[in-house]
């Protein structure tokens, strides 16, 4: 039994989730008294591998070639399954990111592995991993036990900690897979990245606006606050459906699931489907003029007031506090 952690990188940069997955896997490997192997796939990745040392990695398997520059479902799945088998790793950790969620099920099918998706906590009971994961729009938390010999877990980004410690040395081994054209029969030909603010699933601060913002032209208030905080802009479904904001900003059951450190909800009522996507945020601030809005039931701090009165001075005050 060994534990394999998939450290996600894009464009030669580790995602924050790579560190979360590595450090969490290291913690579990220590508790189970087993070895951790970290897998990195891509092109031009050698330079970044030592970064994993600060999160507990000591052995890294690196798979590097030009065709792996972009993420490719079938090739990445083949490589990961091969490395897992070669290493006799029977516990596999992935981030529940767009890459990890796409990749892990294909590997599960290859290795006949059971899977616990989008885990928010892991514990060990009688030598077995019990994974907690939200279901039914976050209305319940399931405890899942995997019964197959190979076990796969995907970890919700931003939930598990990644704190750099004085890292030890990382030893890197190269693995060269036999890849054929068939492994690239679904091929990424381009990546269109929106410039500017971070994505809601990756941001540690999100400022979200709802119908209370009254119109798309007022979202500059949300954007200014987000920019002062270095955060992302989020939106409720009501404003996405109205065409005020793009869908990739939507938070909630039919949008994205987020777990920032701070979530600021402005003019959002807090419908159950919205809460489903953001209730695992560490701190929630609500600004809403209706004192009975359900968002206040889950908010840590609230201002019962008009967003148009509160947002401009809030942005100014934060600028002062942050010395901007």
């Amino acid at each position: 039994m060994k534990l394999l952690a998939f450290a996600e990188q894009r464009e030669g940069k580790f995602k924050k989730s790579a560190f979360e997955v590595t450090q969490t896997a290291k913690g579990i490997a220590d508790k189970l008294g087993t070895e951790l192997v970290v897998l990195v796939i891509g092109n031009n990745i050698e330079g970044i591998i030592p970064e994993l040392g600060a999160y507990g990695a000591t052995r890294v398997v690196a798979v590097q070639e030009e065709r792996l520059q972009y993420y490719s479902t079938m090739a990445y799945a083949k490589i990961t399954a091969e490395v897992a088998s070669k290493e006799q790793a029977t516990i596999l950790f992935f981030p529940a990111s767009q890459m990890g969620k796409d990749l892990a099920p294909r590997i599960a099918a290859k290795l006949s592995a059971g899977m616990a998706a989008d885990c928010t906590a892991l514990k060990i009971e009688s030598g077995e991993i019990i994974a907690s994961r939200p279901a039914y729009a976050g209305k319940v938390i399931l405890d899942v036990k995997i019964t197959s010999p190979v076990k796969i877990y995907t970890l919700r980004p931003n939930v598990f900690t990644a704190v750099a410690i004085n890292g030890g040395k990382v030893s890197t081994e190269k693995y060269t897979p036999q890849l054929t054209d068939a492994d690239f029969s679904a091929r990424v030909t381009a990546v269109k990245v929106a410039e500017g603010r971070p994505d809601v699933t990756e941001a540690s601060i999100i400022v979200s606006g709802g119908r209370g913002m009254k119109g798309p032209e007022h979202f500059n208030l949300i954007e200014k606050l987000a920019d002062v905080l270095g955060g992302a802009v989020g939106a409720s479904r009501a404003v996405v459906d109205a065409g005020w904001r793009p869908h990739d900003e939507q938070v909630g059951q039919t949008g994205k699931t987020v777990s920032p450190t701070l979530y600021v909800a402005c003019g959002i009522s807090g419908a159950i489907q919205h809460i489903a996507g953001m209730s695992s945020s560490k701190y929630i601030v609500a600004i809403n003029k209706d004192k009975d809005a359900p968002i206040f039931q889950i908010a840590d701090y609230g201002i019962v007031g008009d967003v148009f009165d509160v947002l401009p001075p809030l942005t100014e005050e934060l600028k002062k506090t942050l010395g901007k």
Partner: protein
Amino acid sequence: MKFVACINHVPDTEAKIKIGSGGNAIDRTGVNYILNPYDEFAIEAALQLKEKKGGETFAVTLGGDSHKETLRKALAMGIDKVILLKDDSVRDSFSVAKALADELKKLTPDFIFFGKQSIDYNGEQLPGLVAEMLGIPSVSTVVKMSVEETKVICEREIEGGHEVVETSYPVVISAQKGLNEPRYPSLKGIMASKSKPIEERQPIAVPSAAEVVGMQKPPSKQSGKIVGTDATAVPELVRLLHEEAKVI
């Protein structure tokens, strides 16, 4: 050509969820079930592609008799044939995928559409599992798709942008909101759906690879502090965020 939508029957998002007496499943009494919202995009994608390319559309679901309701909705939207893999037992995603893949092998579809995710267990597992079991490509969380002669070009959502993926068919596509605007069933469609047959089949039995051993309500958050009722509360809010929560 053949176009299949795999669909699921799930509790309405407004449903009050209570934990059942066994402690590892929900109490279904009084819970209203609906067609999984994402699967409407899958059905719509199958219908639109048939309108363009010609052929036949199918909807497949694995579940108990209650899933017939969801198949009727698919028929009402315009799906030609529907199949119920009738099974009331508790299965994990791996076991459902095996049964679906077994049926899909016989159907030999050109395009298999899934929703991005079931909103009950939120697994986002089936599309990838089934594609791998069938040995065909898959593209998940697709928000845009165009089909040329043999080429399929998709855009899938990633953090902070989109990936453009080029592939061919047969292929598994999982639909994210934005791919299309699902149609409302017409009155004629609803009437016709009532008399159309639902084909029932026995899915292959495959043991589950994961089980739910416990279920809890999330720790209830105590309502927070109302800092104030107008802009004068701003300095105090900022102080709390800075000194108490230490998040800025």
